[in-house]
């Protein structure tokens, strides 16, 4: 990057908010995926005007700009693949308004998910998506990636809560989308276009979110199944029974084995373990729902079922699911936390296929997931210094996504395309769909300055 351009960028945000130090360039080269590429500089803008000036300059001098939140992406969304400038929005971290009367909040993009959650707790409200990285991830990142989480089956994902956005377009114009009303069909739904756009269309600078009252009571239960098919039938049956659990999670046999080898938890090494949570306003309400769920567990040959009587017991039932990532991260040099979704009835088929693929390619692929919405996370464990193993991982990934599409699934439920899924875009999206996506990109960002190289938008 030209020295003069760097000087201009520094003038835009001030010396304290600009860097091209080696340590920053290395730190911004990576997110939580395996992808890596250094930017040429990074900025921490603190006003919309600074972002406008930066994008105008980038559009004119034609250098890449990659917006970034907490950099917790698991698919390379935040990696500056073509260099250029990182626009780190984490210093724009103000909650601008909590308007409970209208059931909405207005926030800057750098507000951390957990900080909003804490601010809303005193009103008895919450922003439901609950991504696993909630303690660190930013709301700007949540919107740009349409983040999901454990509560998807009942509460949906980020897209279901974004009412309005302020976005700086690549040419420096400021776009306001949506409305602060709960209902609005006024014109094209531009808000939805930006939700999940992975920073390729504009820089989100203000977010209006719908928030929900938080049900104070929960019930929790766990069940084990000898076969994936039994667990799968239980999942489907729960989801069409009329009861919608606030969480329904699955842990597979490989994960249970890994946990048992590395902890004293002594879990049953069955083909599937399910954990369900129901929520509501009274104990009767949550228990009523849970009784139905346990009935369905039993009807589908659950070998054991356990319901928590206390908060501590509930936490114990969650241990298998919640300790999975930690255990796998401690025993493996490299992990790819994959992400896919299939129609709910296909969850057992998908789990069976993952286990067969692991065997075929001599890999360990323990899988956990949000069974209640068909969103699974096969965790591919490998040693990155072993080239033969890396090759087998690549082959297995390709076959995994062929299977996903064959089952009527989608390449990603909540992590996004980024860099990781580009090779598979053609499997899910036909030429017309890719053409339209590329036209949208061309319309907003004709010079391809915003997060270039992502989502398979280049031919």
């Amino acid at each position, binding site marked *: 990057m030209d020295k003069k351009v760097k000087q201009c960028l520094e003038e835009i945000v001030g010396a304290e908010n600009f860097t091209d130090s080696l*340590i920053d360039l290395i730190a911004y080269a990576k997110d939580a995926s395996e992808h890596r590429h250094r930017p040429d500089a990074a900025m921490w803008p603190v006003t919309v005007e600074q972002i406008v000036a930066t994008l105008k300059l980038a559009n004119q001098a034609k250098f890449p700009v990659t917006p970034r939140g907490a950099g917790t992406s698991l698919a390379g969304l935040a990696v500056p693949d073509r260099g250029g400038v990182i626009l780190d929005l984490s210093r724009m971290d103000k909650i601008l308004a909590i308007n409970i009367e209208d059931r909405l909040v207005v926030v800057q993009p750098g507000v951390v998910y957990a900080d909003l959650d804490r601010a809303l707790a005193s009103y008895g409200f919450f922003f439901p998506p609950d991504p696993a990285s909630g303690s660190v991830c930013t709301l700007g990142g949540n919107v740009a990636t349409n983040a999901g989480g454990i509560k998807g089956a009942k509460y949906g994902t980020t897209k279901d809560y974004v009412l309005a956005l302020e976005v700086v377009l690549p040419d420096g114009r400021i776009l306001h989308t949506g409305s602060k009303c709960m209902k609005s069909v006024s014109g094209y739904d531009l808000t939805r276009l930006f939700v999940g756009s992975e920073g390729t269309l504009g820089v989100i600078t203000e977010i209006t979110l719908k928030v929900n009252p938080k049900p104070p009571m929960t019930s929790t239960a766990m069940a084990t199944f000898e076969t994936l098919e039994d667990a799968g039938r239980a999942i489907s049956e729960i989801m069409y029974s009329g009861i919608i659990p606030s969480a329904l999670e699955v842990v597979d046999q490989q994960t249970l084995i890994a946990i048992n080898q590395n902890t004293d938890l002594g879990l049953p090494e069955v083909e599937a373990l399910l954990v369900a949570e129901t929520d509501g306003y009274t104990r009767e309400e949550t228990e009523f729902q849970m009784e139905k769920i346990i009935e369905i567990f039993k009807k589908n040959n659950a070998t054991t079922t356990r319901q928590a009587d206390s908060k501590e017991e509930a936490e114990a039932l969650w241990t298998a699911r919640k300790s999975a990532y930690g255990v796998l991260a401690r025993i493996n040099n490299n992990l790819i936390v994959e992400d896919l979704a299939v129609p709910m009835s296909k969850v057992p088929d998908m789990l069976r296929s993952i286990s067969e693929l692991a065997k075929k390619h001599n890999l360990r692929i323990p899988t956990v997931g949000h069974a209640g919405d068909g969103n699974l996370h096969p965790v591919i464990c490998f040693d990155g210094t072993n080239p033969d193993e890396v090759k087998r991982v690549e082959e297995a990934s390709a076959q995994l996504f062929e299977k996903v599409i064959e089952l009527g699934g989608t390449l990603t439920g909540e992590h996004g395309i980024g860099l990781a899924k580009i090779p598979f875009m053609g499997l899910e999206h036909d030429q017309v769909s890719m053409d339209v996506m590329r036209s949208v990109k061309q319309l907003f960002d004709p010079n391809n300055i915003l997060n270039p190289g992502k989502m398979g938008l280049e031919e």
Partner: protein
Amino acid sequence: MKEKYDFETQFRDQVLRCSSCGFCRAVCPVFGITKRPALNARGKMLILKEVMDGNVDLNDELVETLFQCTTCASCSEQCPSGVNPPEIIKQARKDMVRIGSCHPAFEGMNQILKNHTNIYAEDEPEDFGRARHKNAPYVFFIGCVGAYREDEATMATLDVLDRLEVDYTLIDEVCCSGALEDVGFEINQRLTEKNVERILDTGAKAVITGCPYCSRTFNNKPQYQGLKDAGVEIIHISQFLKDFDFGVRTDKVVTYHDPCDLGRHCGIYEEPRQTIRKIAPNFVEMRHNRANALCCGAGGGVRGAYAKNSIDMARRRLEEVEEVGAEIVLTECNSCVHNLKNAKLRAQKFKIFTITQFLNHLLEEAG
């Protein structure tokens, strides 16, 4: 292949195991005030990976991040991959110093301890008006901050020990010098030998330390093995006081700041609370407490090297005091007290003491 640096030999697997999840952002005190990923544990691990890959050499450009860590170990506590960044960073600092890259403040500290007996280069030892070098079952070891910066707190602690009729002695102590190992240097044997010799001379069965860091050093560094070999027990003052009854109490709202050196590094969370609950029934916990407590910003040499950021970290901690509406903040580390007091704004009306200092105050009031 021979590794170029010692941190690789010792910690290669751990550095590789960092999965870059970024969860340490939630707790790193330096990141909390700077929002700069290069200063967070994930950033530091990425930089060390680049060094291991041969893409970058350890050099002056890395000083700002590798020497800006309070070693508070919040990141280790949170890390799903079981990585212990402070230990890795401390070794990398030693590698840096070996090749001549170091923050001047730390170089200064090493020089000072070569020529003086304490980190402040004070030549006149504080006189606390207590017996020195007498034969006694206990030695009370003050520590540099308690002796030269928070002497009022130290005096109060000694008063409490007197009221409890504890038979102790002071010694002409010198810096435990453990901190040198945290900032890239070797522990100073001239100093450690003096301490061991002077403690053993008293015939004491135990050393009570006022400083949790000194306590850690005596317990963990091989240079102090002589104490253990002679059967001398090392106890922090908060452990020593937990079983006494004081017969005084306050109605004020009191909270407790867990010092990193006492909490995360020694696992001492309950003893100080046991004492506080006896004297302050209106005890409240801050949002981050025990293993999740926020660092005051003073540790790892950061107060000396990056004073502004250190004070900002302390301010952030004090915001949590306001959140819970406490009137009194207690802690049991003079270094924390010192930094928190320096950071306190005039508008903040709460007061900051060590537990023993506050206890002494109550005892004095009760006559």
